[in-house]
């Protein structure tokens, strides 16, 4: 059902945790639906220097979160905004069809974290 790569990310998720003084925080999903994700980013010169996540959810939710942080880390925020659910799924060698919403969740959470950063920057 799951690819080897997805299972590997599920077993050893990258960038799990919390950034206390994050520049942007994004949250997506709903525990009622079985998955919820929080993403923290630290930005310097418009580049995502550090990124961490916490996820409540199935193996696909945890693995897509992990892969999303790998794809976003080191990217300029404008480029990170372009990361799509398909990019995340492809990077994991695909997702079962009923789990595609998990990669959307990861895309959403990242976008919200970046938007939060951009809003804060604008209001400074």
């Amino acid at each position, binding site marked *: 059902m799951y690819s080897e790569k997805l299972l590997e990310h599920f077993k050893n998720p990258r960038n*799990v945790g919390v950034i206390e003084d994050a520049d942007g925080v994004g949250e997506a999903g709903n525990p009622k639906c*079985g998955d919820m994700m929080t993403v923290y980013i630290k930005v310097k010169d418009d580049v995502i220097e550090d990124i961490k996540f*916490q996820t*409540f959810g199935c193996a696909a939710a945890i693995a897509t979160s992990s892969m999303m942080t790998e794809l976003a880390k080191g990217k300029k925020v404008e480029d990170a905004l372009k990361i799509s659910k398909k990019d995340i799924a492809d990077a994991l060698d695909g997702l079962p069809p009923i789990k595609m919403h998990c990669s959307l969740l990861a895309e959403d959470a990242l976008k919200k974290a970046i938007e939060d950063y951009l809003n804060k920057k604008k209001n400074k």
Partner: protein
Amino acid sequence: MRKVYLDNNATTPIHPEVRETIMEFLNEKFGNPSSIHWAGREAKKALEDARERVAELINADPSEIVFTGSGTEANNMAIKGIAFQNLEKKGHIITSSVEHPSVLNTCKYLEKKGFEVTYLPVDSYGMIDPEDLKKSIKKNTILVSIMMANNEIGNIYPVEELASIAKENNIPFHCDAVQALGKIEVDVKKLGVDLLSISAHKIYAPKGVGALYIRKGLKIEPLITGGHQEKNRRAGTENMIGIVGFGKACEIAKRDLNEVAERVRRLRDKLEKGIMEKIPDVKLNGHPEKRVPTTLNVSFLYVEGESILLNLDMEGIAASSGSACTSGTLDPSHVLTAMGIPHEVAHGSVRFSLGRDTTEEDIDYVLEVLPPIIEKLRSYSPLYRKAKGGK
């Protein structure tokens, strides 16, 4: 890697004595039990021997046992068999909200065909109140169908009392006893039921065979029409391998029932106690006492069931979950939802179902492996952080 199988409510391994009986049959007999010649007679004898064993286990007469292709087919046959007698004037069926999908979806199908269905509610322990059945009976009620033991949480329902209410109102009572057979006593006479479904592969026999008990004198429409097998009640050449195995498994179940139940209950209680002691924020799903001895269903708060199952699987432990992620839908278990358990808690449910082969070492191993898994998944969980006062 060590392998621990704690999903015996899903299916059970074939008992060695059952395997032996099947192999003997395969080596010696091949006939069609409907044939008149020696080969047919040999098969017919094996078929009727098996029927006797099945009947003995549930205290029925062999003529009251009809072999089917599964427990699901037995449930379909019972419910549609009564409903199809009332195709013209339709009627009202009472069942519960925690039945197996083979009962629930059959009732939903009949609703689409013009029948009316009442789904009895359950309390927070997943129990059914017989008063609710009394209140739901109507003049046009044609059937009551309530399970004996719940597959997800293991609850045992008061079938004797429920069936007597139906009887007072002259309504046939069907009971899905698939999850009760071999775990607790199932006696159709004591229970006072008219129809009762059972399945072979839940009691250490092969998949692909079940049976429906039909009380003598009760007429139901056949689901499968064709030849005159099973006294015109279920057409199709009999699944002899499955039936022969089922017969042997029933004999073993009758012989070992008390010994196995006692041993498994002690292990189940040890697992339950161990989990509660070693892991904080765990909730028991189901009734604390009125449960079959094999089943433990618990929710680990702040984590999701499929993640737990996959981690357990990586350690060689097989269990199951009522999480939506394991069912292919977005909604968690209908049983846990009917009990009023919040979705996020239902998503974190895990069912451990023990069997006659479960050992003390199996339980010790689970109790060693499980706490770090839950701890790890909670360290990933934003819900856990929020619950513990994090921002």
